[in-house]
């Protein structure tokens, strides 16, 4: 099992969700986050006072998938989240040791 953590543009979330659902992957956790990478922030002006906004709003989505489906999932996320503009985000993959479904006690791949 792998944990896929993707930081994406907020307005791309729905497309990414649809692409993963098409693969038969159920479930994800989403957090509204702020951050920056190569994309610079922007300037806001309030009554002449300028503020540099360095942290831009992004969405962080987390999905745990069976190891066999990782490549397909990554492809789907990248395909759906890509605009070609700077600031499209990043995807991180890390191993997961163990998973349990709380309601039934099912474990690992059966719990996904």
């Amino acid at each position, binding site marked *: 099992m792998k944990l896929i953590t993707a930081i994406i543009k907020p307005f791309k979330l729905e497309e990414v969700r649809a692409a993963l659902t098409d693969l038969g992957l159920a479930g994800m956790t989403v957090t509204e986050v702020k951050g920056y990478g190569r994309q610079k922030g922007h300037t*806001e*002006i*309030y*009554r*002449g*006072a300028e*503020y540099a906004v360095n942290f831009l709003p992004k969405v962080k989505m987390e999905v745990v998938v069976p190891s066999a489906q990782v490549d397909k999932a990554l492809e789907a996320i990248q395909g759906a989240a890509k605009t070609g503009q700077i600031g499209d985000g990043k995807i991180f993959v890390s191993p997961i040791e163990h998973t349990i479904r709380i309601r039934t006690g099912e474990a690992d791949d059966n719990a996904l």
Partner: protein
Amino acid sequence: MKYDDLKRVAASGGAAAALILSSALPVLAQEETPTLDTGDTAWMLTSTAIVLMMTIPGLALFYGGMVRKKNILSVMMQCFAACCLVTILWMVAGYSLAFTDGGAYNAYIGGLDKVLLAGIGKDTLSGTIPEMVFMTFQMTFAIITPVLIVGAIVDRMKFSAFLLFMGLWLIIVYAPVCHWVWGGGFLANDGVLDFAGGTVVHINAGIAGLVACLVLGRRKGYGTENMAPHNLTLSVIGASLLWVGWFGFNAGSAVGANGTAGMAMSVTQIATAAAALAWMFSEWLVHGKPSVLGIISGAVAGLVAITPASGFVDPKGALVIGVAAGVGCYICATGVKKALGYDDSLDVFGVHAVGGIIGAILTGVFAVEAIGGTAGLLEGNFAQVPIQVYGVLATTIWSAVGTFVILMVLWLIIGIRATQAQEVEGLDVALHGESIQ
């Protein structure tokens, strides 16, 4: 050419008014003691309610949206608490000091005859309306004036000192100035025109705001930390409530349901729209984008500037006053503040004092005899502008000195500023034990 046209139009208006007046005089002379007019009373009851709405929730939302999230409740608390405190003080002594005869000192301050509203009964009249309605109407003005100062001192004032400041300021600064202009004091006798409170309310509060922010010092992190407004949606709602409430403020100051009220209402709408657009276009030109905060600030600047003029000028005058206020206040709230470095956090000085001064002086320029009974510069009355300047100066000096003395005394006795740790944590949690998520 245009000026000549204006003069001709104004002069013919004046002649018409004189005719009407002379034919109306005998009727007036026959009138006995004033009786209650239900139309006037209905309008004044309405005006009173919507002027209160300007402060709570209008001003509370307008200011609350502009501060950082950690301080919004403290700002709303200041507005709400001051509203309650002033109500009581106005009942106890404020109304009497502003609106009764002060005997030997009547030029400067009223007397104590109506302390605790003594002698005002159900049937006591003030003109054609119950005096209780007039007293309450004036109470809503007394409430909003000190609350305007909140915008200059947000995020950093100790709440106990704030309450004492509001109470002392009402009695020492507001009540006398109100008496000078509306209670039969020296400014009224010298011919200063202030229909709805350009000097009494806006210059008075604006100058006090500047003094208060200088005495209090800048917010911690001013100029380095991000102090952007946390929710301008609230500010838009607040500014809109102010705008609507201002009809009670200006048209209500006619103290009657009549033509003066109607004219005041229309010039208020026109000047406000003009100032909002003027600020928006100025900002668009200078900073490249027309902002929401800009257009609502412009609207408030226009409302402020038309306040002293509203019972005296016609729609054309209102248009010019609005544009002048929009551009003038924009320059002051952005450029001048930045250049001088004072932290008038929400631009009480830049909008209310500057807008009030522009409005007060231009009232002397655009006053139309046929509307308010006094001619302005454009109708050939060269004396009015200097009289207006005199009114501005008298108010400015009293407000500045009074505010400074009150704050210094409070500073020496109890301290006026929240601790650095409280300021960093945010006044909502630090002073009130509450927060919004």
